[in-house]
């Protein structure tokens, strides 16, 4: 069944966890381009996708967070944008087949739009469109614009996703999440977007699913989800970090374990969050705990 059909049927879906830390465990060097592995080590992506599938994820992401041409350009990979993104989808498809839905990840382009920065909106939109077309052509089941802080940039990415889906003539739902900071006056992105503005703006841009990822552990994410719930009827996607990292033996280690996360995620279920997953620091163990929670009868 398609993602939208499952959401309409009222199903709660489990999304996977972090990608970056999984790649680092497998030898990705600090500062190297994670998406370059799509071309050089696709077997690593297959392995990670398989681990999340086996942990019980309904949705598994592609390794294409930095797959926009602007981001790839920093590593000299911009000319291979299509190849990088298609390889990201193909690896996950080989691993999960039709047993999980694949969502194509798309993060910020790394440049500030005019007048704050020097990036032309049209240029940024065209870049996102290139990435989205490649992800759609290779057969993603959904697209996910994530970790956005600028609503203008998020809007360009969501519009590009919509356009790529329309061109392909098939249903490709678009999810969009932003990253908020807790302040004394409530939650805002660093660009000053509050949750009400985000919910309305992302919906207007054409997102089918909205929500938040990264930047917060589970406690804050429950508050964020509650505010989204009050502001929109769209299905919500919530992906907390496993808390804030500490350094242990030269590696970043996250504080919130699978049990803690699943316990807090119960609140997300109560709020009716449709898609629950993890961001930085979460691993297949977190996915497994979320799966258990979602699959057990709600009391």
């Amino acid at each position, binding site marked *: 069944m398609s993602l939208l059909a499952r959401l309409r049927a009222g199903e709660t879906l489990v999304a996977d966890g972090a990608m970056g830390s999984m790649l*680092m465990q497998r030898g990705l060097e600090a500062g190297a381009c994670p998406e370059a592995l799509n071309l050089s080590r696709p077997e690593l992506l297959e392995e990670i996708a398989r681990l999340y599938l086996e942990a019980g994820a309904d949705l598994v992401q592609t390794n294409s967070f930095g797959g926009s041409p602007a981001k790839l350009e920093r590593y000299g990979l911009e000319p291979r944008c299509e190849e990088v993104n298609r390889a990201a989808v193909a690896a996950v498809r080989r691993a999960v087949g039709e047993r999980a839905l694949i969502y194509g990840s798309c993060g910020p382009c790394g440049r500030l739009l005019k007048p704050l920065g020097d990036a032309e909106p049209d240029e940024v939109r065209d870049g996102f469109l290139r990435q989205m077309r490649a992800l759609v052509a290779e057969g993603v089941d959904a697209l996910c614009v994530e970790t956005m802080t600028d609503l203008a940039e998020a809007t360009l990415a969501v519009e590009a996703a919509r356009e790529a889906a329309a061109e392909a003539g098939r249903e490709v739902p678009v999810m969009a999440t932003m990253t908020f900071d807790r302040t004394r*006056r409530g939650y805002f992105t660093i660009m000053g977007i509050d949750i009400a503005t985000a919910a309305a703006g992302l919906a207007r841009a054409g997102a089918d699913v909205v929500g938040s990822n990264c930047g917060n552990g589970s406690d804050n994410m429950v508050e964020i989800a509650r505010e989204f719930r009050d502001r929109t009827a769209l299905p919500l996607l919530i992906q907390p970090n496993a808390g804030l990292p*500490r*350094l242990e033996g030269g590696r970043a280690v996250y504080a919130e374990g699978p049990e803690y996360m699943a316990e807090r995620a119960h609140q997300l279920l109560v709020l009716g969050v449709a898609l629950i997953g993890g961001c930085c620091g979460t691993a297949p163990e977190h996915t497994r705990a979320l799966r258990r929670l979602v699959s057990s009868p709600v009391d």
Partner: protein
Amino acid sequence: MEILKRIAAELERGHDQQVGQMTREALAAGFAPKQVLDEGLIAGMNVVGEKFRVHEIFLPDVLLAARAMYAGMDVVKPLLLKEEVPVAGKAVIGTVQGDLHDIGKNLVGIMLKGAGFEVIDLGNDVAPERFVAAAEEHGAPVIGMSALLTTTMPVMKKVVDLLRQKGLSERVKTIVGGAPLSADFAREIGADAYGYDGVSAVDRIKALIATRGVA
């Protein structure tokens, strides 16, 4: 006096042309360059930094205000150099090796310049050796490091360790900051301070410089 307050107010609103114009007017009216800097530009930027710190304003407002501050600084700076007005201090800053995220680091740079510091900005993807070499070369008492990625945070410890190995850790103090960091993390890696945001980073750096002599 009035014009200096107006410079600060226009700077807060991010009006770069007005700030440049009024800075010239203030100088033409006989105000000392140092006074225009302190009571106009720096005063305005301090308000911006404080408002950002308490989330009354956000990154776009700060970037526009910084642009306005630079418009005024461009006018004042040549005169300050001529008068040999001493700087508040020197700081080497950069985003650590492997990390290309420079917004936070740039904010700290803006706030430091606003506070009268000479800033040696090494940019992004800065190797530990480069931080230390720059601090030695410029005689800077402080190295400020930024990271957004959990994958690059560990590089900060390499800088701290390198300073220790070279016997420089009394002379050169370290401060770290960035979204995934915490004061605990700074302590764990042996950094001398943690800057939660641009404003507190400047405060901590001033404190580091003040205590360095007696350390």
